[in-house]
């Protein structure tokens, strides 16, 4: 694959203090993710997957090492710049959907665009289009509690894609879904990668990992590819 690198982690380490014990959640992990790549991240619970996703998603800072996003070395000391970078370059898909409970499906998708400075008209039109793409045009005005789990995750993916991010981070996106809904979600993520986004997906599902271009394994904070 001859695509441009989107995310690069260089020797990233992160440790947490749990009581009086220091837990090495991530140990000199390095990773290169290119545009259009769909990569799964596997590993047992507590292996460091979430820590890696948090650092890749710029919601946590490494103790050491370097994070390069879209050729920019992230300066974690500048929180405003980090927020800007996260907002514009990264889309998130959560295991528990994390849709804003008081907003409709369309408003949830529009929110990402509004945060990125789009006008309401632009955001609304783009949300409509994405809802159509994920097959939920008829649910545009429905609030999260009116949607099924699969529908909520599709809205969440549409939200993650709305601002055309270069990187999509998905944390167990099919973990709470039936297999049919899970397949739909994986189709959408594959489609996003097909459109040039780099997708990093943490999953326990071999079926989901099987749909990815490659799989990374995390064990006791150590990242390896097989």
């Amino acid at each position, binding site marked *: 694959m001859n695509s441009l690198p989107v995310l690069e982690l260089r020797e990233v380490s992160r440790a947490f203090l749990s009581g009086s014990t220091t837990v090495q959640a991530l140990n000199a992990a390095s990773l290169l993710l290119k545009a259009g790549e769909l990569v799964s991240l596997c590993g047992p619970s507590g292996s460091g997957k*979430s820590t890696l*996703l*948090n650092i890749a*998603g710029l*919601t*946590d800072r490494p103790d050491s090492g370097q994070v390069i996003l879209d050729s920019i070395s992230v300066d974690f000391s500048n*929180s*405003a710049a980090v*927020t*800007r970078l*996260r*907002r*514009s370059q*990264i889309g*998130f898909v*959560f*295991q*528990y959907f*994390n*849709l*804003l*409970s*008081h*907003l409709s499906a369309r*408003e949830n998708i*529009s*929110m*990402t665009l*509004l*945060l*990125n400075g789009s*006008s*309401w*008209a632009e955001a609304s039109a783009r949300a409509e289009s994405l809802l159509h793409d994920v097959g939920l045009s008829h649910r545009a005005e429905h*609030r999260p*509690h009116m949607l099924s*789990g699969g529908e909520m995750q599709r809205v969440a993916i549409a*939200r993650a894609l709305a601002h055309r991010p270069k990187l999509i*981070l998905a*944390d167990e996106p099919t973990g*709470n879904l039936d297999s049919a809904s899970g397949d739909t979600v994986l189709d959408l993520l594959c489609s996003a990668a097909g459109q040039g986004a780099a997708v990093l997906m943490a999953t326990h599902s071999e079926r989901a990992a099987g749909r990815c271009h490659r799989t990374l394994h995390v064990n006791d904070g150590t990242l390896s590819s097989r």
Partner: protein
Amino acid sequence: MSSHLLPKLFSWIIVRRCVDDWRRIALLLLSVALGVSVFLAIVFAASASIRSFQLTAELFAAPMEIRARSGALNPEDVRHWLPLLSPHLELEVFAERSAHTPSGERFSIVALDLLAHAEAEGVSLLAPDTEASGLPVLWVADLFFERERNNSDFCPIVESRTHCLQLRELPAELSLGRQLGSRVAILDLATLQAWEGEGFSFSGISLKSEQEEQATLAVAEVSDGKWLVSTDLSRRDRAQNLLGAFQLNISIMVLMSLAVCAFTVYNGFQLGVRALLPQLGVLHTLGLPKSSLMALVICEALALGLLGSVLGLSLGYPLSEFISELFLSTARSLYQVRDSTQELGLSSVPMLYFFSLLVGVSIAIVGSVGPALSTRKVVAHIGTRSTVVAAPLPTFGLLGASLVLALLTAGALILAHLLREALFGHVAAFFLICIPVALAAPTLQAVAALSRRLSGTHITPALLAGLSGVLGSARACGVAIATSACGLSLLIGLGVMIASFRHSLEEWVNYSVAADVFISSKHSGQPLQASFYDALLASQALWQVTRFSTQEATVCDTKTLRCLTVPIFGTDIPLDPAALPYRVLSGQLDVANFSAGRSALVSESLAHRLGVSPGSVITLKTSTENPSGSTQVTISGVYKEFSSERGNVLLAFEAFSNLFGARVPTNVSLLLNDELQYQDAEPQLYTLPGVERTHIRDQAALRAEIFETFDRTFAITGALRIIVLIVCALGFAVTLGQLHWDRRRDWRTLQVMGATQSTLVLAVLVEALALLFPSIVLGVPIGLLLASLLVHVINPLSFGWTLFFFVPWQALWVPIAALFVACLPPLLWHMAHLQRAARSARLSDD
């Protein structure tokens, strides 16, 4: 599930929830504790201060006294008539004199036959050191020593002469039949007689109130009508009116505080149950019946109610001390005596603790009933997920309820108008205040929808997040809005009413206190010294004298035969009607008939109380100098007057003088000639004979005294307004806190999505404004309507006063600004929490 396992399961769930969800539980506990502490504090402070007011009112309800119909009791008359009355009545002569301390503070000296008292009660009054000093003793209550030192030499000015005395505390076992305050001292009668010699006169003869009827007959017979049996009705009425108004205010306060706390607890449980629904769904799926789910919520409420009540009791103790002190300091300021409630501590009313506990548990259970019922919506679900399905707001039902409340308000107003009964005015005010409760949620929806529409395509993430947040929790937010709107309307209503009253008073003072100098006798209601008065008249080249006299008399409506005892005023009226210091509201002043004593003016209050109007004929029961003992006059007009809510009758001075046999007026006002200033006139006035028995004030001093009295009277309302604001602000703050906690996951999601701190802070501000704006939209008009109702309906019906409706900007912006300020603590907490959350934002769920 077997029923005996339920208590164990419930305890386990409740305890674990308290540990895991401690912030929400803390807010709920705070709500309950707030309710209990406010209840405890206000009920205690209310009962303590009402008791204090009652005791003070008793102080003011002066004992029955025999007084001269005009002036002081003549010593000759006392010598002749007292022996005739004594066999039938328990009598005691006394003399009152005004005095002031060397530092200028005024107090009264009451002279009694102390030796006779001490002898009768077996109390020794004389102490060795008294004999050694050789100074007469001035006996005072311990309250007096707030001003002066015990056992010290003390040289007050009594009736313009300085006398050195020794202060001593009156033995507690000596019962004088009268209460001593910080401004009353007792002197032996013999000492006063020695000081005054030939000029000595008695002020009155006190008697027991149960002998009133017997005394009235005997005194009329013996004194041939020169003496009468009376009490100082004006002071007693004033105290009773204040007590009534105070009790009403306190009742409103207690009810409102409890409602705010119940609303806050309801909100807490509503949000808490929503968060608990998934777990309840799991329990239901596992086989727990819905009735047990409801029971679980109620049990949790019971536990929180008990815990919160205990917390509330500990918070309420210092709060009750504070509020009690606030009320009592106002009472002290009003009556200028120390309260008698020092021994009425919170420990003296143990039942209040029990009631507070009951209130805490009750508001927790009442607040949890609605949320408990919402557990019926829980459905058994394999792989339960959040099923937060808020029932749609019954918008049309709420609008219908507000319409019904508006109709009830109008109905009560019509009844008040038709029956001329102030009670219906109060009922109308109650219904009016309830309207924001019904309109809060629909107004919130309308305001939020309008904001969305107005923002059009310019909607920002902050606006979207903030508005959707409050709309998504319309029930909870509606309760907060209702609370703050009610509080705001109460604050504005009372504020505008007081401002209107003060404005009306200013206007009245402007034309009625127009002279330059005001002179009265130092003995209230007594005629001026004749020598002083004659000297004033002799100097008419320097000033123009307007005479004024007052006398209590019975006034009856000849048509209905309804009678009232009120002050009768006699005064000179100017030849130029434009200079009349009385504003005639209805009817017309017929100068010829007025001067001839055939017609009179009556004040609005009297017209209202007696139900008379221009053209009505009233009977004045006067002295026996008038052969029939009474005279009839026609009311030519009703005039505006604010000096007393009892009302009064205004006669021409000559007519008054003829009726009551009083040549010398009780007061005069001087209009100084153009070239003479008060500063120049004052020394001349003080050279006149008998000036030592007069009280001289310039226009500014009299005006200041009137406004000081007004402001003191309304100080209690100021204290109550502060408490209303505190209760509303706390209710508002707790609701905001609960909303924030309920939406913490949304805030975190927004942060992960890249919302900046400023966006989130703006969203929080939008949320707060979305709560405040409907509160203002509802509170301001309802407050103005309430003020209008107080000014135009309740005041005229209660007191017969027509007030100008005056809305100073201050009465509007201060409560609004205070509400904004009240939002600051929860907002700051909210923002601090966002800041902390930003530092720990995580992609994973927890």
